């Protein structure tokens, strides 16, 4: 479980960025990565692997492990730790291999 330090929590109140995670509304701090926002919202697993379907979550937070993949606004396999939150962003769990939309 993760939480924001008071100073960061205040920033969320002062200048909230609202996104949705699996359809549920989550309020974030401007400048946070999607991965940080997920941790702060109590979400530590963000995908099921393409190889065996086991759950994974962010591991390195610096863009090298590729375990933090999520679907953002319909785009599959986006690195949550390398993507800053944006107003209205829709984040969904990356379930297995990506679909190819014809």
């Amino acid at each position, binding site marked *: 479980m993760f939480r924001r330090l008071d100073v960061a929590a205040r920033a969320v109140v002062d200048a909230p960025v609202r996104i949705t995670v699996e359809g549920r509304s989550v309020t974030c701090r401007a400048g946070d990565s999607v991965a940080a926002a997920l941790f702060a919202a109590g979400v530590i697993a963000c995908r099921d692997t*393409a*190889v065996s379907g086991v759950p994974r979550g962010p591991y390195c937070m610096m863009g090298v492990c590729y375990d933090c993949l999520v679907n953002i606004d319909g785009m599959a*396999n986006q690195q949550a730790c390398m993507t800053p939150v944006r107003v209205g962003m829709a984040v969904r769990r990356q379930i297995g*291999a990506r*679909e*190819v939309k*014809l």
Partner: protein
Amino acid sequence: MTSPHSQMTAADPTRQVFDVAVVGGGLVGSAIAYGLRGSADRIAVLDEGDVAFRASRGNFGLIWVQSKGMGMAAYACWTLASSRLWPQFASMLLEESGVDVCLEQNGGLFPLLGDAETEARVDFMTRMHAQPGMARYPWKLLDRHQTADLVPGLGPEVTGAIWTPVDGVANPLKLLRALHTVFSKSGVRYLSGHGVHDIQREHGVFCLQTAKGPIRARKIVLASGLGNQVLGAKVGLTLPMGPQRGQILVLERTRKMLPVPFVTMRQTDEGTWLLGDSQEDAGYEDGVVTLPVLATLADRAVRTLPALKEVRVVRSWSALRIKAQDGFPVYEESSTHPGAFIATCHSGVTLAAAHALTLAPMIAHGSLQAEVAPFSTRRFHVQKT
């Protein structure tokens, strides 16, 4: 847990005489070694180290018939025969190694983007099939509509494709792994780090000089890809060869969606995509990929299947094809050094079945048969005079 160094506790390979030593542990050498079992007791496969030219690792995995044989009808026949042996080969490998090489022979497509390409390719196929002695298999020009029926999401610039039912694919890496697994289960000695730099003959036994000592064998098969030119010369075989570089893009896994392979695009059993390919004269620079070629490969792929635009390129490959000067295989037994055979080709996957089930028995028997006579180096000498 098995003890470490188990390979080393086996008998010292420099202290015995093998029945056959195959130089080269890639797809050609390994398929031949596989097929030699049963007719030979002591077989060794000599391979170089981990970083070598290794064409077998840069392989697309096509078991392809429709592009083969212009200028040599016998090559088309040999290719078609191999593709027909593949189902038997695949099930033998599965049974013996437990590895499924994921053979699919549901046909294949050659994509055509525009009238000029269509005209050129139809002309090519027509002329090729008009050659005397050409292999007989059905081929068809599909229009855009028919192609789109086979490939959902086909790009608007694809005006059609050449289709044949005899083309197919397998997983080339699993094929190599299956073969090597069979070696370790059946006592074929796979010796890595044993690059051969010289060959001598003493008292009817070949002596292959390697960095780790001499390997002796009554028969040898040179299947060392680009190394065959130098080694062939040591046993009286003149084989001018040249490397031809090919670059390939690999895309991440997606849900399965390409039911029929293109010659330039296929989706593997794991869900990854292979996009190819280039043919370049670039010497031996196989460690390099070049941006313009990658861009052209990507552009072509996106035109063929636009939905791939958002799928990520996870790596690229650059490998050297093994090409004799006319591009066709070479199989020959040396006349000056009987018992020394050479096998060279650039379609290691397509021909793996023929190598294992047709060529290897010929080698074991002691002489190559008429079916592979067109592939001897004598054809180069005829052209010269």
